[in-house]
């Protein structure tokens, strides 16, 4: 008995930390899951059923579309940028400045990013006005910047740097000997990429793309600042459900929508973890 207590004493040192995280991380997370199954203080499936509503499904689909588009564009352009950096000198100024710029820009999001693009491509944005005055082109159009297309473009701004950060180590892991070996066996550049580098890099590329997807899917602040009307994507529908009392006849819809998001993120991150395990076998 007393020995058991003594063995427990060191664990007591973790009580403040665990207590804090219980209150501010675990209880909120659990209450989202539980709250999704509660309506008017009673256990109920009505909120879960509301997830099947056409409005919710369409919004979810648009969220997935936006995240996938910005993830794929970001992944391709980010991979190209990473390759342009990796083929330079490993300790050169270019590489150092691009990687630290990417570290900074990947954190750049939210209100300030939205305003940066409003100042650029908004109705009286600098580039819009230049287009109007110099080229006679109306870049603003009917306000595409404030819709899904605009969100895709704006998200790309933080997706590309994130891709560079997560994909660069895999490109670094490529050995120049592989290329030499392939060449000495008579492989062309195309064949090298198609049969050696491509298959080796594919899991890392797909994994990074999934990470970018989750990143865009979870983003709220940028969209909130850019889109003030309507709720085209899931995070904005949650805002709507949180700020108005009742949406689609449900008072707890925000919880169910949040659960919906958790499910998508968990699925994506699980796939990411699986791909990562595959990647690490080759590239270290």
């Amino acid at each position, binding site marked *: 008995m007393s020995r058991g207590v003594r063995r427990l004493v060191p664990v007591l040192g*973790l009580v403040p930390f665990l207590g804090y995280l219980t*209150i501010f*991380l675990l209880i909120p997370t659990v209450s989202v899951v539980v709250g999704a199954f509660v309506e008017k203080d009673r256990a109920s499936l009505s909120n879960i059923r509301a997830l099947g509503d056409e409005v919710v499904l369409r919004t979810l689909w648009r969220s997935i579309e936006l995240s996938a588009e910005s993830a794929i564009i970001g992944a391709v352009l980010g991979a190209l940028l990473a390759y342009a950096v990796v083929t330079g000198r490993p300790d050169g100024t270019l590489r150092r400045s691009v990687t630290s710029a990417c570290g900074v820009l990947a954190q750049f999001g939210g209100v300030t990013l939205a305003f*940066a693009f409003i100042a650029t491509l908004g109705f009286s944005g600098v580039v819009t006005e230049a287009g109007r005055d110099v080229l006679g082109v109306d870049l603003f159009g009917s306000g595409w910047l404030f819709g899904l297309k605009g969100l895709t473009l704006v998200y790309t701004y933080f997706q*590309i740097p994130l891709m560079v950060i997560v994909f660069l180590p895999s490109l670094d892991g490529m050995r120049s000997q592989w290329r030499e070996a392939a060449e000495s066996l008579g492989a062309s550049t195309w064949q090298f990429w198609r049969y050696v580098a491509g298959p080796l890099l594919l899991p890392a590329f797909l994994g990074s793309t999934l990470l970018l997807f989750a990143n865009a899917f979870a983003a709220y*602040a940028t969209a*909130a600042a850019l889109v003030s009307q309507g709720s085209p994507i899931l995070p904005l529908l949650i805002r709507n459900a949180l700020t108005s009392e009742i949406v689609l006849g449900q008072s707890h819809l925000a919880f169910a929508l949040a659960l919906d998001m958790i499910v998508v993120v968990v699925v994506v991150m699980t796939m990411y973890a699986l791909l990562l395990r595959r990647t690490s076998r080759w590239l270290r």
Partner: protein
Amino acid sequence: MTTARVRAHRRLQAFRVVVLTVLGLFFLVPLGSMAAYSVRVPAGGRTLDFWRQLGQDPDLRGAIVTSLELSLLTVVLMLVLLVPTMVWVRLRVPGMSRIVEFLCLLPLTIPAIVLVVGLKGVYAWVTYFLGDSSLTLTFAYVVLVLPYAYRSIDAGLASIDVVTLSEAARGLGAGWFTVITRIIVPNIGAALLSAAFISVALVLGEFTLASLLSYTNLQVVINLLGKSDSQTSVAASLASLVFAFVLLILLSLVGRRRGARRTAPALDLMAPPVAKEG
């Protein structure tokens, strides 16, 4: 063979120039536009009036102060919570290290917009006990910065021999408090600094929790301002952005110097330098 090599090399160089130029423009044009937009006068010419407004607008000033206070409080609470816990785990309960790591990295996978739904209930109690000051956001912000702070502190602790250092100190009669404040902390200064920098940068840019829990911070005010006075709001955005950029660039410099810090003579005397980097 050699001409093929030369041609391949030239093609690679052309590819690099194109990629770097096009993407460079993509990243620089919005930043440049912000700067141009914030000093523009509709009739033509330039003015710094909107920048002067940053110090004069009372709402904006209040919000800047609030956000700075929030970042300070978040850094302090984060360090107080995380450093003793992580040292304790390494020394006394290494079996718990996976659980602590999992909990610290968990906020990365829970979107802020999801967390805020669950935090609403918790904050009803926080308001009940502590009032509805915006500074209570600190509690949630500590959770937000946890993964980043954990990573840099973990890397710092991995670069010193915590067990030997603390056993030496304990053998000389130091208590746990002294071990942490006088032995461990001075040795992982760079890691703590980078944890603090990234926390400040994140808190200054935070919008989701503040706006949906109905508190006021810098980003909330900038967003409101965008509806009435877009040029001042762009100036404020650019200012907060530049501040965060500077912090994060300092962070990368601190990170680079950490390698040099590890072989500091004071450390060499006490323990062999550990090569492991987190």
